[in-house]
């Protein structure tokens, strides 16, 4: 023990320092992602930071052009082009519409256009945009962007089928036929959301 006292002292010191700091700080996934993406010498990472408006769900519903229930059919590869801002990376999510709760039109497949994605060595990260998975059942609060703010449309989609979403607050995941989860993972009966939509869209 006496022979190795210096090594023991060093090991204990490292353990105390590491334990105190790791216990105090959670290593967040997003920081790990940023450092992982940026490791390649020739890579570029673009981060989009968005301030989120404080809006009630009723206010978002009133501002929406459509609310739909559907299934995420496909997440398209990222594109570079105009999406409100010139030369930005965005990606499209194709949703197969099961039914429109409000703002119905003839589109059975719609496109949700979102900031972010990876093209070659450039990645755009957007933590305020919702994430989608193929096969996911969703309820979405959506609006049509003005025509002059859009870039090319996916094949088979016209301008009436292109939507943007109200950030993470515009996406609910269907737990089952009767329950949805919001962005904070809170379960809400679907009937409550539908009632809010109907109330908010009543003529004043």
């Amino acid at each position, binding site marked *: 023990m006496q022979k*190795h006292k*210096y*090594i023991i*002292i*060093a*090991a204990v*010191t*490292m353990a105390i*320092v*590491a334990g105190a*700091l*790791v216990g*105090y*700080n*959670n*290593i*967040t996934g*997003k*920081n*790990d992602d*940023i*450092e992982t993406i*940026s*490791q*390649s*010498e*020739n*890579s*570029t*990472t*673009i*981060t*989009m*930071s*968005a*301030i*989120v*408006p*404080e809006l009630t769900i009723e206010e978002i519903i009133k*501002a929406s052009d459509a609310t739909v229930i559907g299934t995420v059919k496909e997440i398209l590869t990222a594109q570079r082009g105009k999406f*409100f*801002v010139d030369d*930005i990376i965005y990606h499209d999510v194709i949703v197969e519409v099961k039914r429109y709760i409000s703002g119905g039109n003839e589109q059975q497949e719609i496109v949700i256009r979102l900031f972010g994605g990876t093209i070659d060595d450039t990645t755009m990260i957007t*933590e*305020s945009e919702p994430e989608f998975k193929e096969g996911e059942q969703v309820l979405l609060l959506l*609006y049509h*962007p*003005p025509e002059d*703010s859009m870039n090319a449309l996916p094949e088979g989609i016209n301008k009436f089928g292109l939507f*943007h979403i*109200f*950030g993470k607050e*515009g996406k609910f995941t269907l737990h089952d036929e009767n329950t949805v989860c919001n962005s904070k993972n809170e379960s809400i009966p679907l009937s409550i959301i539908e009632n809010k939509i109907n109330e908010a869209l009543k003529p004043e």
Partner: protein
Amino acid sequence: MNKCWKKSLTILLILLSITVIIPASIVNADEEDGYIYSGHHWAVTTVYFDHTNIANMDVRTAITLGASTWNAAPPNFNMYAWSGSNYDWYLDYIGNYYPALTFHSVNGANEITWIATYLNSYYTWSTDGTPTASEYDVQTIAVHEFGHWLNLGDLEEEYNEDEIMYHSRGMGEVQLSLGSGDEAGIDVIY
């Protein structure tokens, strides 16, 4: 000789733990610390922004005041208006939702190579410090966005809502003073 070697190894291991573990924990600081550090950095300590893309002089003044809030804080990093800068502010339509967006790009060495902020013309903006319930205050939003210029991230937990870097702001709201987490963040980074 053997004892000397062991002493040296001990000192080396202690130094290693200080120089590696402590910086790693700072880079991964999160909500509980009242700030989030992106890990990105400028190669300089003074950055210039160009807001002359915005025609309204009162908006420009409010943006400059937003930068001044951070300039007045202790660490030696400053942001000044200059029309020759490639780092721009805009007042443009950017959708029906976000009041403001800041984009910044970094190279493989985590150095910032470009940054731009957009105030959303979809909303109505106040520049006199007394926004109505249907207006956003330019200076309040500018202070927050300049926090991103300083590489601070958005805070999402409600217990951080008094921090400038809290991720959400409402119309009619004025928030101009740095919170303890905001100050701790820039103190660590710079």
